[in-house]
């Protein structure tokens, strides 16, 4: 329960309609896209401007009430579940595109704008914003920035962090800071822009972003290579990079994924293949042709069973749709779908796929793997049932071991989903005790009262690295 005076203050700031503490609003903001997590906030607020956000933060810090800022709540790390109650701040009303600067090739946008709407707008102007998380039809720019979302184009074009060049953000105290700007070079002090990207709402509330736009590629070509040998496919990924070709997209789907996607999207994919690589190259037409031809040769050398080059844009789009629906299509197998994003150096993809299969077998759980193979980012996805406690326990054990395997291979526990709640106990495995101490110090400076998204990123205790039966 929030203090009555605080509630009154919040209502005064945003207006009667935009603060709610009824049960309906609280229940509907108690979850995000992560399975098995739910926790009720005490109130929900929908600010309409930076000034309102600032006033809200001043009021909340005065009363010591935590706040979880969020967009559409589609993240997969429990990043926006209000585990310590408090207020959920939904940024949907701040959804305007403020400016597209055609001289500087930048766009300035409010955080609540849906990413796909933003992309459509800049593409209509003949420009290109490459980050394309699979959730882009629903997720917001602000949410993408908070989580540093990736997507299918990360390999060649980078991820959200590579396109955010300026931010306006409100600190826990209510003070407003501006970082970066319409600048391609800026070394004035620490790079707070990059620090806030991926900070998961634990350092500040982002209220405005300046994004870098690039010219769109002149042409594109998409191909599918199908392998009856899983390791051949994985080796192909490493070989393409080794041959110094950087495709725009280099995606991987294993057999269980292929089956489910085909059932969902009815694409006529070959169901007897162990792995499919979806490869897209863009750029000027000559380079695209040459690269696709060289990739075809590599695929043949690695004994691809079938290689299809999409003839039309329509066909290509269909293939991309297949990959985009992989995560959610898997949800049809079993009620609960747990998707992780262990990431390794891309030369170790084959080893990682192997390890995942072994681990799944060891624990007797069903794991389908797909992902952005070109940047080493795999999505081992367990299909299970939250109501089966014993099986869920085995799934948890399997994922712990998968994280451990990723780190052993020089990788990380999360490539693009964020730490949030679910990977907090493993963060120290990746960054070490000194790394955690530095991060905690940063958090302390930004948010001394620990009001911004508490309970995320830093776990009460780190999971022990030796996997033992925890009973």
């Amino acid at each position, binding site marked *: 329960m929030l203090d009555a005076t605080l509630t009154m203050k919040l209502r005064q700031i945003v207006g009667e309609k935009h603060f709610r503490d*009824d*049960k*309906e*609003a609280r*229940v*509907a*903001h*108690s*979850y*995000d*896209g*992560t*399975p*098995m*997590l*739910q*926790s*009720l906030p005490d109130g929900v607020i*929908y600010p309409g401007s930076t000034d309102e956000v600032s006033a809200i933060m001043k009021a909340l810090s005065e009363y010591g009430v935590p706040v979880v800022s969020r967009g*559409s*709540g*589609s993240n997969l790390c*429990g990043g926006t*579940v209000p*585990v310590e109650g408090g207020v959920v701040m*939904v940024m*949907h*009303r701040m959804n305007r595109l403020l400016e597209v600067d055609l001289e500087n090739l930048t766009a300035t946008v409010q955080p609540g704008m*849906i990413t*796909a709407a933003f992309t459509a707008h800049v593409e209509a102007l003949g420009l290109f914003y490459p980050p394309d998380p699979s*959730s882009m*039809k*629903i*997720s917001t720019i602000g949410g993408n920035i908070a989580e540093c979302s990736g997507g299918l184009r990360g390999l060649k074009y980078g991820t959200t962090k590579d396109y955010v060049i300026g931010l306006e953000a409100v600190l826990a105290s209510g003070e407003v800071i501006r970082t970066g700007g319409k600048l391609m070079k800026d070394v004035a002090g620490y790079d707070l822009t990059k620090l806030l990207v991926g900070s998961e709402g634990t350092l500040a509330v982002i209220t405005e972003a300046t994004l870098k736009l690039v010219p769109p590629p002149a042409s594109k070509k998409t191909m599918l290579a199908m392998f009856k040998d899983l390791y051949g496919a994985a080796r192909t990924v490493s070989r393409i990079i080794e041959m110094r070709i950087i495709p725009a997209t280099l995606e991987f789907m294993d057999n269980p994924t292929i089956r489910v996607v085909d059932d*969902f999207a009815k694409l006529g994919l070959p169901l007897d293949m162990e792995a499919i690589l979806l490869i897209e190259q863009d750029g000027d037409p000559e380079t695209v042709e040459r690269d696709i031809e060289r990739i075809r040769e590599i695929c043949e050398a690695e004994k691809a069973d079938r290689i299809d080059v999409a003839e039309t844009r329509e066909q290509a789009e269909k293939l991309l749709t297949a990959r985009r*629906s992989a*995560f*959610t*299509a898997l*949800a*049809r197998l079993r*009620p*609960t*779908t*747990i998707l992780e994003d262990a990431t390794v150096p891309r030369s170790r993809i084959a080893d990682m796929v192997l390890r995942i299969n072994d681990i799944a077998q060891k624990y007797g759980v069903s794991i389908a793997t797909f992902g952005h193979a070109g940047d080493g980012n795999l999505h081992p996805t367990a299909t299970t*049932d*939250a*109501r089966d406690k014993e099986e*869920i326990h085995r*799934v*948890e054990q399997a*994922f712990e071991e998968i994280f451990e395997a990723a780190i052993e291979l020089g990788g990380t526990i999360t490539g693009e989903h964020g730490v949030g*709640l*679910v*990977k*907090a*106990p*493993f963060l120290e495995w990746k960054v070490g005790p000194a790394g955690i101490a530095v991060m905690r110090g940063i958090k302390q400076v930004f948010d001394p009262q620990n009001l911004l998204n508490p309970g995320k990123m830093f*776990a009460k205790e780190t*999971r022990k690295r030796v996997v033992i039966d925890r009973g």
Partner: protein
Amino acid sequence: MAETNAHTHIQNKPAIDHANPLARTLHAKLDYDQLTNCMRCGFCLPACPTFRETGVEPESPRGRIALMKAVADGLMDPDQAFQDQMNHCLGCRACEPVCPADVKYGQLIEQARDAIEDHAEHSAPVSGLRKLIFKGVFPHRSRLRLLGKSIAFYQKSGLRSLARGSGVMKLLPKSVREMERILPDASGQGVIERLGTVYPAKGEPIARVALFRGCVMDVLFAETNVNTVKLLSEAGFEVVIPREQACCGALHAHAGEMEQARDLARRNLEAFKDAGISYIVSNAGGCGALLVEYDHLLSEDPAYREPAREFSDRVIDVSRLLVERGRLPSFADEEANAANPVTITYQDSCHLRNVMRSSDAPRQLMKQVANVTFTEMCEADRCCGSAGIYNITQPEMAGQVLEHKMENARDTQARYLLTSNPGCLLQMKLGVEKHGNGSPMEVKHVVDFLYERIAGGGTSGKP
């Protein structure tokens, strides 16, 4: 998955002894597997008209499912806000085709409304009206006919002018007044009265099919039913119209009157049982969508489970049957429509698109018509706000949705706006009347437009 607080782990359907009687009913009626299948990815949000209008989570399918689950889990009481939220859903089911996990949202919302209706304490007039409409009129053929005749009498006898002139209409709610204005001329003569129960195929018959004539369709749109039969005949189908068929029960199901919906379904299974037909043809997306789900509706009824499955398998929309099996060369006749080139556009019937999954067939047919330019309307796949009787029960939201719809309709500059469902048709007429700014746009059923464009067709459809 990583360590999380024990209290955040979701439990199995808890055997909660709900103190609240409505909560108990909801707990019993909601399909917990479907509630669990929703993985809260949020992909349904951009497809949902009420979420788009309001931007708030409880007004989305994901939000509504979370609320249902919270009630089933004993996390919240089904208070008035909860009940209002369940009724706020348009039931357009646009969330289903985009749901990767294949959650049967339409079934969940009907289960919720069914439970709410079990405990509803309607005011005496509302309760009387519900009883009159759901029990007293729709299930009874003769009474519907009589209603048709009464409306026709009202419209033609001068009573309408009297009512409109006298100011008595001002006593009615605005939404009902608006509806009265756009109501088409009703008829006491349905399709059987005009064409009999069997209508022969032109040329070698491709198949014998049955027309599902509907209840509202056959009173307010009897001519569309007549045109449907004639169009099917032109395309090579012999058409039978079983006399004993009843209302499909869709309005009942959407309003939470599930038992009555099941009764009507059983009556229809009996009516079509011995008709010796390959298809049951619907020309109303809303009816067709329930007919194809009779198998689900009667899945708990051992005596009717199997017949319901067979029935549902044979249900098809008229456009789809014409495209997939019919011979329809005559409206591609250049000469027939040369003098009358027009631009047309189409508003999807949500239930035709999202439940019967037929969105290409009507478009294919329209594009085949000679001298017609088909212009796709922006967001034609979004609900128009009619949604059964939604525009009467939730006039504010329906009005908002309609206003956006009409902006898109105007942008097409079409002369004809075509639809595939009586509710959408009335709603579109209301839209043209309210937001058309004197535009000459006419709203028609696809079937009527097609039949008029057939060489030698047109006025011959008139009784």
